[in-house]
């Protein structure tokens, strides 16, 4: 069992937006030693006070199944959906990237941002803040390119994801 391959899964969870619900989910992962690669949460149905949590996690097949069963067992949880298993899905992440510098590096950062379709959302004489949306890999690549050009700060949202096609969660 030890040699089973580790898989990466994106799991969407619909929960009651009540106090402590995020602590329950995070406590479950830390208490049972599961990985969290990223976790995002926001209210999505205000009328019904439902929030959607997107978790990227990794583990063997048995662990992934266990994570889903454990999530499902939490009382305020409405639905758990394994987007990785349940057909194609779209995953996006947003990053804000601050780069400081003057002269050639500054111009270079702007040029690369253009290629990556990153938007400038703040600029001063010696800095830019880029906003960029895309897959985690694309964000990683852009940030790596910014490193030698005066990268100061990165803020990332973590992955949000949704299944392709007409069906909802």
């Amino acid at each position, binding site marked *: *069992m030890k040699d089973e391959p580790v898989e990466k899964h994106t799991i969407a969870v619909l929960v*009651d937006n009540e*106090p*402590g619900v995020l*602590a*329950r989910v995070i*406590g479950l992962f830390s*208490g049972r030693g599961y990985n969290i690669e990223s976790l995002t949460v926001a209210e999505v149905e205000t009328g019904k006070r439902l929030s959607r949590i997107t978790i990227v996690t990794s583990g063997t097949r*048995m662990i992934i*199944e*266990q994570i889903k*069963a*454990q999530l*499902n*067992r*939490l*009382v*305020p*949880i*409405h639905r758990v959906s394994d987007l990785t298993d349940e057909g194609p899905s779209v995953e996006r992440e947003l990053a804000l990237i601050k780069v400081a510098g003057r002269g050639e590096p500054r111009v270079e950062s702007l040029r690369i941002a253009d290629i990556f379709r990153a938007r400038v959302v703040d600029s001063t004489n010696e800095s830019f803040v880029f906003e960029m949306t895309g897959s985690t890999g694309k964000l990683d690549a852009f940030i790596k390119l910014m490193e030698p050009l005066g990268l100061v700060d990165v803020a990332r949202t973590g992955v949000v994801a949704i299944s392709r096609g007409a069906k909802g969660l």
Partner: protein
Amino acid sequence: MSDDRMTGAQMLIRSLLDQGVDVVFGYPGGAVLPIYDEVFKQNRLRHILVRHEQGAVHAAEGYARSTGKVGVVLVTSGPGATNAVTGLTDALMDSIPIVCITGQVPTHLIGNDAFQEADTTGITRPCTKHNYLVKHVDDLARTMHEAFYVARSGRPGPVVVDLPKDVQFDTGTYVRPDQVEHKSYRPQTRPESDLIDRAVDMIAAAKRPVFYVGGGVINAGPHASELLTRFVRMTGYPCTQTLMGLGAFPASDPLSLGMLGMHGMYEANMAMHSCDLLINIGARFDDRVTGRLDAFAPGSKKIHVDIDPSSINKNVPVDLAVVGDAGAVLEAMIGRWKEKQAKPDSKALQVWWDQIDEWRGRQCLRYTPSDTLIKPQYALERLYALTREREDVFISTEVGQHQMWAAQFLRFEKPNRWMTSGGLGTMGYGLPAAVGVQVAHPDALVIDVAGEASVLMNIQELSTAVQYKLPIKVFILNNEWMGMVRQWQELLHGGRYSESYTAALPDFVRLAEAFGLVGLRASKPGEVDDVIREMMAVDRPVLVDVRVDPKENCFPMIPSGAAHNEMLLGPDDRAEAPVSEEGMVLV
């Protein structure tokens, strides 16, 4: 309409009554005074004043396990709540339905490090099935009804309702249980019918089958135990029980192999090791049961029936998983078995039973009797012999060797008669649990089989038993050692008995008398029957100090990290099976 307007404290009492609660185990304090005021003003709800909040939870567990109802606890904020944490964790591990109401500082002081403030919902989140902080009085009644629903539904467990003091004073509107429906929590209880079909086919086709049944059958109610007994008898297959499942199948039935696992029966473990089909009903493949996982029931197909999908494929991958209530599943299986007119392979079954009988022939519970020292096994054999005629015997235990011997030597014909701390292994559980059982069954014979070390952990509850004239019997197998610890040190740590001997023990007879109990003692084998008879004859709480052989070890035993077929049957087996390095690190 105005009928429904009341204070939070009144609402709390009303909701308990509407939930059919007749007893609350509790301890007062500043943050629950308004509730205690309402307790004072009424006489439908009985309050049992314990001596420590941990005792309150264990008592409620004993009450719950012996009745099938939800046990209720009421404690104050801060230290009251933190004292309850061990009991809550115990109830979570053993799937016992509990609703625990904790007082909290007033809402406007929460977060200010107020007097006796503790983050109760934060502390208890990982040790409850669910918990609530009620900030508005109009949410209180609904929350209480939800708490009961969550505690008893699906896989049962403890639920905490944290109630700030200002909410207890506020006035709001009460709602009845039938006006409340939970938004999302709907555990699956009915099994899918094609799974039943496949299960029955697998069961009928087996050649070396074994039923492995656990606490889930007890959780499913006494009817599930009846159905289990019926189904097992229809098949003629052997049936072994976990520590938590004792009583789910009658111990006297020839099909019963008794308990399996670390200190289980040789024949049960060998049957598990050699079976071709393992039928798990309401058990969770605990490590005390499986032993070394990669050598667990090799070459068998496995069916797992459990109400909690997270129990399935957690430790042991299975071939067929049936999610549902044990009672509902067994009923469906019996129906399908009859429809199909299933017939087990009687030739194969005969060969299997011959093999099992050979294992039984090893008489794994044999011990060396003594004329001078009371062997703990002997004391329990006598306890069983002298109480077996009575229909209404309830046993609780503490944790250690005595607990395992009790599981081996006391035999249970019915569910809900055996209260023990299995998952957490909480020393100090048995005495308060016995208090709770006796509250629920005032005329029954309720015995806490105890170790002298464990019983000291909640000894204060003797005082509760005396106050409420609960004639519990505390039967201490006093070996002066933390016997289970000493046994592991002997087997695994070269006999270096580090801190496992209690060099100063109280005189338990005088201790009992000081608390107002009857204290008895047996020091020689010849005295055992007499003290048991006297203990049973006295209609008051009794403590018996049975001075047993201090050096006896509990066998059979699967050393940690070993497989089912590597059992030690007695002290002489030891040399042949040294414990592996991997085994050493296991608990």
